[in-house]
């Protein structure tokens, strides 16, 4: 398959993804409500952090990227269920290219969902600089790629049972979110929870993202360690995804 054919497939998927204006606007409304209502109220209750409002806002941005990655994995599985995947596999397309196209789709949708809220957070916090915007977008993109790779890799479970896939994704997402610094810093976690969180790559992604923005840097994990973990996550899940897709995707239909 040539580059233009991958672009055509991507264009088709993007048209479908952005078909409904509600799908684009909803994450912005979700962010606005959570940030301005929940974030404001919780920041008045939190006494151990001066600017929990922005800490929470940045966590929400990672959550939105996370949700897009989960949506991407689920969509891939549903395309198998609906027979669309079998049609795509009948085209002269390499499996790694199909995987690459899915990742590009997820990254594009994630950026569309995250960019306006990110600019809002940067603007309100007074931390906006072009460098902060670019570096935070790069970090968010890497986090999204890592999680998309993970979610698509898990699709082999769905080819056995969609219910089990849904449960695993729900449980894994909840655990990755709760046992991470997405919503609270490592310093506030009791010993056991911080131990588990340190083994969670999302913790490093969240802290790296805040480092890129320049928020609460004293509370964050060393950025060099975070960069290494986030890149390792991306490489591992990308290769894992490509390997699994090339082996398990042939002739499947989700049950």
């Amino acid at each position, binding site marked *: 398959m040539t580059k233009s054919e991958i672009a055509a497939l991507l264009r088709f998927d993007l048209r479908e993804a952005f078909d409904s204006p*509600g*799908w684009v606007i*909803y994450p912005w*409304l*979700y962010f606005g*409500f*959570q940030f301005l*209502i*929940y974030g*404001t*109220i*919780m920041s*008045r*209750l*939190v*006494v*151990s*952090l001066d600017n*929990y409002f922005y800490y929470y806002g940045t966590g929400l941005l990672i959550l939105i990227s996370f949700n897009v990655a989960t949506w991407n994995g689920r969509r891939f599985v549903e395309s198998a269920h609906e027979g669309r995947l079998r049609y795509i596999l009948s085209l002269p397309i390499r499996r790694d290219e199909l995987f690459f196209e899915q990742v590009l789709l997820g990254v594009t949708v994630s950026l569309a969902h995250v960019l306006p809220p990110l600019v809002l957070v940067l603007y309100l916090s007074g931390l906006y600089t072009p460098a902060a915007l670019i570096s935070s977008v790069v970090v968010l993109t890497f986090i999204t790629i890592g999680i998309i790779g993970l979610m698509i890799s898990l699709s082999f479970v769905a080819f056995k049972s969609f*219910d089990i896939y849904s*449960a695993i994704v*729900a*449980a894994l997402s*909840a*655990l990755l979110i*709760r*046992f991470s610094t997405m*919503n*609270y810093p490592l310093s*506030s*976690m*009791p010993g056991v*929870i911080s131990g588990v969180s340190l083994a969670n790559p999302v913790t490093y992604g969240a802290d790296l993202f805040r480092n890129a923005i320049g928020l609460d840097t004293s509370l964050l994990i060393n950025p060099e360690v975070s960069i290494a973990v986030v890149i390792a996550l991306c490489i591992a899940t990308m290769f894992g995804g490509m390997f699994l897709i090339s082996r398990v995707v042939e002739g499947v239909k989700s049950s």
Partner: protein
Amino acid sequence: MTTVIRQREAMFRVLQVDLSYFFRTKWLIGTLVALNISDMLVAGLVYTNMMSFDYFVFFVPGVIVAGMFAAALDVGRRVHLGLSQGVSQYYLSLPLNLEGLAWAHMLSAGLGGTIYGSILLVVALAFIPRLASLATLSLIPLLFIVSMGLGGIAAVLNLFSKGGDRYWVFAEGIQLVILGLSTVFYPIQVIGSLFSPDATQAILANPLSQVSDALRQVISTQSFLSIGSFGEVIGTSLILMFVGFICYRHVFAKVWELGKL
């Protein structure tokens, strides 16, 4: 007389099917309960370290109520799937009138919310032993009435989404707003400092606020809910139930006439 008995039997069958869908997959329920427990133990404990009061004790009733809300709304999700997959059309071919079908779904929302909320309540007893009292037990019927009211919200969503994919966005959005504008996760004093007195009153009238505050009252004072507060919760839930019943009836009437929504 025979028709009435048939109606009741058919209504009971629909109720049974609704409930069995929710509780059939035991490991799925186990996963959901485990997630709620992780919410209590992780988010609750971490936020306690970040706040000047025992947020864990405040948060646990909130998690119970949020779980009950999700379970009550789940019936609406199945009705939505039923509308698109022809299950509702099949139900309407049974000896069951529109009111009976609407009531069956409302009742299953009530029972689903109560059973799931009670499971979480039993789990919470391990962390907050003060919840083990007759006053807590007296709140179970209240959970049932409130869950039925919350099931009414799902009916409204089904009406406005017209059985389309918009249901999922509406359901998530409404869940976010109703939970966010309640005292499920934060005390009313802080809400009062942010919103106008009228808005604060509306947030207090939210059935989710009322049930979580009732559970907190049991934890702090071990006292029974006053008749007045009981009446308030039932009053708000009855309004939601009534609206939900009308919406479901309207939805099923449309399906009866046109074969689809």
